[in-house]
């Protein structure tokens, strides 16, 4: 198939067999690749209620349709399995250079089954695939393991996706890390990998693939480049990437200050993307073939953290280790992020767990003795760094936080009902996955998106940035009501989220970046179809592209419905639904998340049963999912 590597690699770690299977051209036309292809295989090959850590779980690496082309940022790969953290769909996605290399080696998907009897890593050099011993890498952090494998294989261009010690120690929100700093971190995919005794996947691809019409494809890419270069977000993204959101969200009053207790942060300027670039940025960095160097290489000049240098961070880890935990020491936050990265953990989950513990302490729900004598005052730097170490090694109090905030609240909340309820109410998660670094009360489409997201509370399943636009005319044209363009209004958001969920599913399945696809909206359905026509030769319409997105979202819903998820699970913590944003939250002050009416509208827009939140038979038939 044009634009594809053409093969699927199946590796059984239990009996150490390695097979190549051909890619099914009919299937990729319905699901594209990456996330779509992964969820389809997970649905068919892994039975419901499979434990995330069991050898029966499959760990899937999927590469999208446009990965490896000159599409700006066509770099991303998805890692999918049943999640050991949430018990439902686990799926996470990263950029960098691993995805394109896997495709150049000839593979669109990698299936890892079973469990090795001792630590191994997988080495893929085009058609030569082997499992190599990894006992010497076990216990090594992400940086050490990556560089050791490159050294061992004698090639600094080898792309490595690896896990750190956190995954080995069974921390349930450990990620798979590529290019040292690029994690597929959410939902514990690294934990699944380590449970299979697989330390890393290393790949080198010297092949190439054709597209159906190279001249047309390149013409469309040049047009796309122009759209990106002239986009109003190009300059700020080039300088700061997503870290610009610290000051932006501060002015809107929806930062997660001290665990969502206020929407502005007095230290915002000190920890902003602007300050970060000014103080520590030495150069811009980019993912594969991207025209927006939104990543940054930092050299941190601080005597407390000698030699600290890193790529990134994005807004999520930055706000997590500053605003969310009440810390205004930027260098300390970068040290925290670096340690979390090297141990290999999800920065959103980790920062939530620490902030949760701090709020428990603030409210007298947790004593200093229970927390190994740590000072859980807001922003205490030593505590933050110590807890990162303790969680990664499941030591003492860190063990309680290593299963995610939902399970931490369950364990901590043992005792009188009232006490248990107080603890559980401040565990900021949806379906067991920790909420991101913004207050949903101030950005309501994001709130709805978090509540309904198929992998648990997460913004990247929809990224409905339209609600910042304040373009009432466009809102009426697209979603029927002007309110859809305003972040504090709730009407129309069900349709906004439906639309953006489908865009996100397409972006993840094409392997392109949601910064450009969802936030900057550089391609609509029709333009996507045109690009796909040039790439694959399919006679595809914009409507068909939208249908693919809808099919993927519905299939994911079916998969989590098999785990018992219904409307009552599509919710967020009580604080967002019932407590108005406190004073000092700027223009968001007094706002709550009107989730129920938004859910009604969302299920209606989806053609799902409004009572249960499940896809109807009619909708499934329409999408060809009724077998």
């Amino acid at each position, binding site marked *: 198939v044009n634009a594809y590597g053409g093969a699927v690699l199946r590796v059984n770690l239990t009996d150490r067999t390695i097979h190549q299977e051909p890619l099914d051209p009919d299937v990729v036309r319905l699901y594209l690749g990456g996330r779509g292809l992964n969820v389809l295989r997970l649905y068919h090959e892994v039975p419901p209620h499979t434990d995330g850590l069991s050898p029966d779980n499959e760990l899937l690496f999927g590469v999208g349709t446009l990965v490896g082309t000159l599409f700006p940022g066509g770099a991303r790969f998805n890692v999918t399995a049943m999640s050991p953290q949430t018990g439902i769909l686990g799926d996470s996605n990263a950029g960098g250079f691993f995805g394109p290399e896997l495709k150049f080696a000839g593979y669109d998907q990698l299936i890892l089954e079973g469990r090795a009897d001792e630590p191994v890593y997988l080495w893929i050099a085009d058609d030569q695939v082997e499992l190599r011993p990894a006992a010497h890498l076990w216990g090594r952090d992400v940086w050490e393991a990556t560089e050791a494998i490159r050294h061992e294989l004698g090639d600094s261009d080898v792309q490595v996706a690896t896990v750190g010690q956190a995954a080995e120690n069974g921390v349930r929100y450990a990620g798979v890390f590529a290019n040292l700093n690029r994690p597929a971190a959410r939902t514990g995919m690294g934990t699944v990998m380590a449970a299979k005794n697989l330390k890393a996947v290393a790949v080198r691809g010297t*092949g*190439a693939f054709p597209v159906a019409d190279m001249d047309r494809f390149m013409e469309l890419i040049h047009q796309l480049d122009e759209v990106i270069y002239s986009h109003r977000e190009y*300059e700020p993204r080039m*300088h700061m990437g997503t870290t610009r959101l610290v000051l932006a969200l501060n002015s809107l009053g929806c930062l997660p200050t001290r665990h969502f207790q206020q929407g502005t942060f007095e230290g915002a300027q000190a920890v902003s*993307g602007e300050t970060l670039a000014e103080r520590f*940025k*030495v*150069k811009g960095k980019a993912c*594969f073939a*991207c025209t927006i160097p939104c990543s940054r290489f930092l050299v941190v000049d601080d005597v407390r953290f000698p030699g600290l240098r890193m790529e990134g961070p994005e807004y999520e880890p930055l706000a997590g280790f500053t605003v969310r935990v009440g810390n205004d020491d930027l260098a300390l936050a970068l040290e925290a992020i670096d340690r979390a990265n090297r141990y290999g953990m999800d920065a959103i989950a980790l920062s939530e767990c620490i902030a949760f513990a701090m709020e428990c302490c603030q409210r007298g729900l947790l004593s200093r003795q229970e927390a190994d004598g740590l000072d859980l005052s807001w922003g205490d730097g030593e505590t933050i760094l110590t807890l990162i170490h303790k969680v990664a090694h499941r030591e003492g109090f860190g063990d309680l936080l290593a299963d995610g905030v939902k399970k931490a609240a369950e364990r901590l909340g043992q005792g009188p009902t009232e006490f248990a309820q107080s603890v559980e109410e401040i565990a900021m998660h949806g379906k067991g996955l920790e909420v991101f670094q913004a207050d949903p009360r101030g950005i309501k489409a994001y709130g709805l998106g978090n509540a309904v997201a198929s992998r648990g509370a997460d913004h990247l399943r929809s990224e409905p940035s339209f609600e910042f636009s304040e373009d009432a005319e466009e809102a009426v044209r697209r979603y029927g009501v002007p309110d859809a363009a305003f972040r504090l209004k709730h009407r129309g958001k069900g349709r906004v989220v439906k639309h953006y969920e489908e865009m996100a599913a397409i972006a993840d399945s094409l392997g392109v970046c949601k910064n450009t696809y969802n936030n900057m909206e550089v391609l609509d359905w029709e333009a996507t179809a045109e690009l796909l026509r040039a790439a694959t030769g399919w006679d595809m319409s914009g409507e068909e592209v939208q249908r693919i997105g809808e099919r993927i979202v519905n299939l994911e819903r079916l998969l989590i419905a098999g785990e018992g998820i219904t409307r009552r699970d599509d919710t967020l913590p009580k604080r967002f639904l019932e407590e108005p944003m406190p004073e000092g939250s700027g223009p968001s002050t007094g706002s709550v998340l009107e989730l129920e009416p938004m859910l009604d509208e969302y299920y209606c827009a989806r053609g799902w049963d409004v009572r249960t939140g499940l896809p109807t038979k009619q909708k499934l038939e329409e999408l060809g999912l009724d077998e």
Partner: protein
Amino acid sequence: MSTERSGNGGDLPAPWARERLHVSADLCTGCRACEVACVAQHEGVFGRAAARIKVVKKEPIGLDYPTVCRLCVHPPCVEACPVEALGRQETDRQHPADKQHPPDCDSPPIGAVILSEEKCIGCGACVEACPFGAADLHPQTGLALICDLCGGDPACVKRCATGAIIYGESGLQARQRREERAMRANASPLARPGRSGAAQRMPSIRRMQSIRMDFGARGLEWPVNRDERPRGGAG
């Protein structure tokens, strides 16, 4: 364009005035688009191993450096080739300004190293000889991979988003480097040396494109006009 260039087989430009690729590790983001663009141009497919330009990346220290053919005056690769498969373009192609005779893109610009695929035996002597590691072997055919400057309109330069690869005359490039260095040594806050320097020197793409089109005249503009720092907006 240098004025001493006479086009159509007249006087040859001096080596310093020849157009060649110039790279900047400061501006390179390591995205490898140049490699992919090179393969797309020469092979008509998407890949990177067959690229005639290669980016060296050392992730732990953040190094990204594009390795390009330097158009040496005494090219070791040509001298090392045992079967005379490598040669140099000794005559100038038609001048781009000559409207009656538009440039022939198949004809390499003067000074470019030319590979005869018929003669090449794939021995790798050129790979060993090139002091920069710019020569390589094709992963499928095994023959030499040598930059031909895309007939004077390099695909890598066209796709580079930050201006880290520039196609231009060495004399002008050297002058620009001198002046840039002089300004960085200056105490001016707009041209501070060291770490935040790169961010400040990062030109906008619009500005870079105008520099590429009018390289000599405006080459000095971008390092100094970085006074406005963008603010984060909503969304």
